[in-house]
């Protein structure tokens, strides 16, 4: 017995430790994802019998103008969200100085990260409210009248993304701050000896050391942009007339309000495929990095 144990403990111990995670991951993520794909091939109201319709949901989806609106909005989210890593880096460099009072500034930049995104959404909704919102007051101070951002079908997505960008920048800032703290003093010293200063120092000595952090910041920001849902739910509920909806919100709306779980699952599957691109890229990078360090 002890012999068997001795011979196999090399893999048994890690297997036991990893088992709960595997089971949880298998049930909560893998099995339910597969089930979603399965449901997407049916017409189902959530409690009646399921009816097989093959690719019917997908055919309908690709003919649905709302799908393209949501997809377009997802792209807008993705593009604008990509501002978060560079802006976060900029702020991190700024607040990383050894200046008196910088700690307070640092914590101020940190605040949006502590707020629940629902709270951020509500606050920005108030800011955007025509007539008595903060934005309206600002505009009226200059004698102009503010556009009703959340009522304008062309501006509404930008208004929501802007609100969501705020905590995302703070998040990237925190990542970069951590990265900046772990910079190698030796390399910076060596750079200084070689006469590198300012931009050159940042470009050739500091940034190369932040590659891993940047990579994480970009990957998480991309996924955050794609699964954006809470801000839309709080600020516009996809409105006006669906013009600020994204795939995640459309999926929710179809499943929960319209009782079309099959159609919702089809949207979920498409969203999953889009995210898969980023996930594969992310895993690929991680595995390559591991190979290099191994």
């Amino acid at each position, binding site marked *: 017995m002890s012999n068997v144990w001795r011979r196999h403990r090399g893999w048994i111990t890690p297997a036991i430790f990893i088992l709960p995670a595997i089971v949880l991951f298998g*049930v*909560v*993520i893998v*099995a*339910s*994802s597969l*089930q*979603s794909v399965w*449901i997407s091939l049916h017409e189902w109201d*959530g*409690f*009646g019998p399921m009816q097989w319709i093959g690719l019917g949901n997908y055919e*309908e989806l690709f003919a649905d*103008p709302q799908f393209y609106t949501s997809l377009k909005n997802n792209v807008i989210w993705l593009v604008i969200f990509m501002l978060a890593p560079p802006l976060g880096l900029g702020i991190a460099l700024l607040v990383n100085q050894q200046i008196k009072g910088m700690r307070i500034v640092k914590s101020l930049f940190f605040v949006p990260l502590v707020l629940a995104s629902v709270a951020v959404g509500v606050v920005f909704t108030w800011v*955007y*409210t*025509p007539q008595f919102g903060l934005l309206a007051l600002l505009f009226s101070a200059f004698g102009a009248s503010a556009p*009703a*951002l*959340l*009522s304008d*079908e062309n501006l509404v997505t930008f208004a929501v993304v802007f609100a969501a960008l705020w905590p995302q920048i703070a998040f990237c800032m925190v990542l970069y701050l951590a990265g900046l703290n772990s910079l190698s003093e030796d390399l910076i010293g060596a750079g200084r000896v070689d006469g590198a200063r300012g931009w050159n120092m940042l470009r050739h000595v500091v940034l190369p050391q932040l590659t891993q952090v940047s990579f994480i910041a970009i990957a998480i920001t991309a996924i955050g942009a794609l699964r954006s849902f809470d801000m839309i739910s709080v600020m*516009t*509920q996809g*409105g*006006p*007339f*669906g013009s600020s909806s994204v795939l*995640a919100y459309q*999926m*929710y*709306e179809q*499943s929960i*309000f*319209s*009782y*079309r*779980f099959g159609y*919702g*699952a089809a949207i*979920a599957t498409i969203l999953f495929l889009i995210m898969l691109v980023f996930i594969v890229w992310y895993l690929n990078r991680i595995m390559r990095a591991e190979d290099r360090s191994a």
Partner: protein
Amino acid sequence: MHSLFGGATTRRAFLKTVGGGAAALAVGGIAMPAIAQSNNLTIVFNGNNENQTNALKAIIAAFEQQSGATVTLNQMDHEAHKTAIRNYLVAGAPDICFWFSGNRMKAFVDRGLFDDISDLFVQENYQSVLGGTINAVTVNGKQYGLPLAGTLWGNFYLKNVFEEKGLVAPTTWDELLTYGEAAKSAGMAPFAFASKELWPCAGFFDALNLRINGLESHIALMDGKMSYLDPALTAVFDRWEELIKGGFFLENHSSYGWQEAAPLLAQRKAGIMNLGNFIKYAIPEADLPHLTFVPFPKIADIPRFDDFSTDSVHIPANAKNKELGRQFLAFFYQPENLAAYLAPAGNVPPRNDLPPSSDPLVNAAVESLKQVQGTAQYYDRDTDPDMAQAGLNGFQEFMVRPERRQDILNRLEQTRTRIFKV
């Protein structure tokens, strides 16, 4: 989302198991005395108003004393109950449950999950006291529930503001147009309209359609039996467009929720709000005595129909003790008991023979309701939920971009053919 699908199925599986277990117990328990069975009543209640719950408990206690039955009251969270009812009606139904009338009730009636209580209606002669509200619980001429707290929809304004600005509450279409011009020249939006939550648009559609085409045609549309491209609807959208283009609605209304727009009445920035009587929760206390109800203006020369959305109470088809359930409903529905139950929430009673309420707004609505020939529930309660979602979005888009009318109607018609399979 993923976990939601997973969760739903596991819960179903779980309930099946539990239901199966309960069934096995019931079969095993056949030897139990039948009398104990017939004296037990289970009630599922979804109210979230504490005073109302207490009123219900008092009624139950009185019923227990009078009938010698034991009553178990199961309270459920209002929102959680909406999903739970789908399960318990199939596996382990109570004897009484609270729900909503109209299409939400019909969904369960069509699946054979609610008991036909027409006999109770005949026995207690409810027909004579319910008036138009009876439609809300009727499917194919049979009644499946008792209507409870109701919300009468119409136009609300502040009397003092109207007197101050020399405005007259409109009762006909021409008066509405005159009123609109007067309000605009007084620097007010004729309608404090808020469409962020979408449904107020549907309320306006209901009002116009009920005034122009009447109840029968409206319900045909709600049941998917009438096309959204039907020429009868042209007049509805023409009138609506006239108001939209005439600047009758609050600017940028899709930025406001109703609770943000209602205070505009007291701020003298808007004149009328088309809503249910719950508008009073958004009116400052000082202005409440001035809040006045007036029905939506008359348009076509037809009887008056209005939205009157009601909650209701039902006997599930799978209830174990339907006889006692009927006894309880009859007791609960006596005017004084019903009044005690309805008073805390300040809603409109469905019976027209209740003692007057302490809330003048409720009394005004009761008076007004007596002239209503028939009631609809509300767009999103009358039609299929999927259709409602498309309709709400479409109406909002129409109110912002009336020039897209044809596109919107085509889309709604497409949705209707998909949902109702016509």
